[in-house]
């Protein structure tokens, strides 16, 4: 073989290699999070078979995941339209407090309290949306402002946890197992995720949301009322936050100030983990669910292995940066390879 021939052969081999590498990297950037989730489950199953690998523990994981999944799927909607909602954690806390107050202080029936609570959440979402679209305050600022105000309003409403006068039936909502022996929050999560998945993928408002998120000017010029679509997305986020807040109060059996504030970070972590799943940097419901499960399985495993609770935030932050960073790097290498 001549020198030129060898070089050519080497070149072709290099090309094959880089093509293979590229495919692998694209695959990794899409399925990396799911792979990570499966590896985590595998690891815990092998190392703690008796405790981790049981029906009771799986139901426990799903119950824990359900509240995060509901609030995170609402957040997904605001991110789909290209906005931000930093108020959701505070909305959940505030509504969780109000819903118990409506029953304990105002003596309203359970169903009316819950309807009121969800409407309140959606209303706060609409307010966020109006501030962002009509007053044109940056979403980060307006939702942070609204959220902060809610903290104070909650304190004004009841500085002490509302623990007495809450009907047993309300706490039973989250403790009961109405369908297939599944905890109710899991059922509610499935319904919410399914509904939002259908809205985003199968309805015209969902298509419009995606259009607004991909190119706002193009969407406007296509005759889409961009402001309304955004307000709708914020309303969904508020509604979902209110649902998580209500379920949390039911689970705790009390309305407590700032009880759900921590869901903000969990939701963001889950949604961004999800955006690195299956699609390239897009926010979508299936991805969000995967993100929530990664967090829930991780927390569960850590607690089984007796890791101190302060390991949880380290895990949460670490896995978020790892997953999103890995997929971003993989995408970039795939593009340049």
């Amino acid at each position, binding site marked *: 073989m001549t020198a030129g021939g060898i070089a050519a052969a080497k070149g072709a081999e290099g090309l094959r290699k880089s093509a293979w590498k590229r495919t692998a990297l694209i695959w990794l950037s899409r399925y990396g999070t799911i792979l990570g989730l499966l590896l985590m489950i595998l690891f815990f199953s092998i190392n703690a078979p008796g405790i981790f690998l049981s029906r009771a523990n799986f139901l426990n994981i799903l119950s824990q995941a359900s509240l995060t999944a509901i609030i995170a799927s609402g957040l997904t909607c605001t991110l789909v339209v290209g906005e931000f909602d930093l108020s959701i954690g505070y909305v959940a806390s505030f509504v969780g407090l109000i819903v118990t107050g409506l029953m304990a202080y105002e003596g309203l029936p359970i169903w009316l309290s819950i309807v009121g609570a969800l409407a309140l959440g959606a209303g706060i979402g609409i307010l966020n949306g109006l501030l962002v679209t009509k007053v044109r305050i940056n979403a980060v600022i307006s939702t942070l402002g609204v959220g902060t105000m809610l903290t104070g309003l909650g304190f004004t409403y009841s500085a002490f946890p509302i623990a007495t006068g809450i009907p047993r039936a309300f706490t039973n909502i989250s403790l009961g197992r109405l369908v297939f022996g599944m905890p109710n929050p899991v059922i509610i999560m499935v319904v919410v995720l399914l509904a939002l998945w259908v809205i985003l993928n199968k309805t015209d408002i969902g298509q419009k949301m995606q259009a607004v998120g*991909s190119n706002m000017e193009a969407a406007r010029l296509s005759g889409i009322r961009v402001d309304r679509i955004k307000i709708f997305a914020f309303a969904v986020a508020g509604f979902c936050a209110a649902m998580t807040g209500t379920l949390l109060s039911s689970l705790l059996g009390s309305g407590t100030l700032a009880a759900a504030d921590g869901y903000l970070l969990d939701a963001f972590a889950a949604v961004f983990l999800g955006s690195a799943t299956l699609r390239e940097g897009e926010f979508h419901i299936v991805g969000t669910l995967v993100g929530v499960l990664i967090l829930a399985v991780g927390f569960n495993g850590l607690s089984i292995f007796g890791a101190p609770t302060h390991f949880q935030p380290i895990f949460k932050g670490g896995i978020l940066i790892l997953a999103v960073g890995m997929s971003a790097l993989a995408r970039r290498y795939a593009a340049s390879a």
Partner: protein
Amino acid sequence: MMSPSAPAAWMRIRGITKSFAGELALDHADLSIERGKVHGLVGANGAGKSTLIRCLAGVTTPDEGEVAVNGEILPLGSPRASERAGLAFIHQELNLVPHFSALQNMLLGAPKVTRLGIIDWRRSGVAARAAAERIGIRFPLETRVCELSVAQRWLVMIGKALARDASMIAMDEPTASLSEPESEQLFAIIRDLSAQGVAILYVSHRLEEVLQLCDRITVLRDGRVVSEAQRGALDKKGLVQAIIGHAVRAPDERGRFAADRRRQPIFSARRIVWKHAVKDVSLDVYEGEVLALGGLVGAGRTEFAHLVAGLNQPDSGEFALEGRRFNPASVADAVRAGVALAPEERRSQGVMLQRSVGFNINIATLEKLRNVAGLPFVSGAKAKRQADRLIVRLRIKTAGADAKIAGLSGGNQQKALIARWLGAGVKLLILDEPSRGVDVGAREEIHDAIRALARSGVGILVISSDVEELALLADRVLVMHEGRISGELAGAEITEARIIELSYHDVGEARRQQGDAA
């Protein structure tokens, strides 16, 4: 500091050539510039004026050629080297920091006198203040730029150039945003500067101004220098001819559609006024014809289109669609009424790049694609059918409706945008620069699609700065100049030469002159 009798040909530009993506923007351009003279640089859109300026400024590196300043070769592609050689550039956008004072802006990027790292504004400002005096700046230099008028901002830019000892100042369309008295003031300053030995390179579309002000005029066409004339050697007619060139394209044999103008127009506009951009525009779009708006960039065509499409609302005047009053308060209103705009900026305002071809086609017609009319569910099958049908009809080259639109060529993306509105059944479609950045073959296909739409009864209004495109595509052309319609061409009258001539035809001034004569 400078003598008015500086040596001739202070700057020599030789054989500057630059191509972008295979297209020659500058083709061996030669030019010499003398100190103490005002040099005019004119040419149609895309003739290569800005590329030449950018090459001199060191922002763009030419493929070939050299520039010598004062006998020394200027390193090309280095803004710093250009500045050091005494070249200053004032672009139309005036790169000023609005919240800095005039003085701060004049000193921006210049070496400043510091004491222990703290800027001594008083001592740093000496050269700037001297420059301000030279051009007669009367407002305090401590005024923030955002509080200054456009004319005053120009003075700041000129002062900035002088404070750095600029020997040549290039000005791009300086009077575009100036009132008449302000322009006169600027001309006086330019004459002063040139008397002091500064060379001025004056780029403008306003030919009267150029003829009046410049000692020498260079005409660029298709990247080549086609004419060099001393003051007085050219009149406006000669200048227009030089800009167009003699090789005017023969009128199209295709024949142009003559709409029946006794019928009710699909769309009409009456005395539309908006800010200073659209001044009294009236027009009618008839069934079957391709009506085009020609004119120079900045003539107010896009602004007018935005009013029709509901992005902005006119200050006065009225629109009618199929004989009914039509006042869109938003784009959504306009679309609902049947008026749509395919925008100039295809990538940033037209397509949703990460989405599929089908998504992009169907996004304006989702309500029509529902499973059941009253319920908000979009039928995937109906959506696919509509997308497939339109892809075939417009011959969009794509792997399928599910392929990402980002992978398509510019021409095919544009066809997808036309498909979007074809599916929506619009009554009036406005296409702003429909074939910008598209190759010749695709352009023809786009033109065919537009013509077919027009013949099928959709009102068509095309905006294009490409004179050749107007001559090829339009059945009737309205030419705009500075917010007014300066003329109408139909049938065999539609030639590139006539369009360009009208593009430079100042209706406002013609009216004023008529008024004077009366």
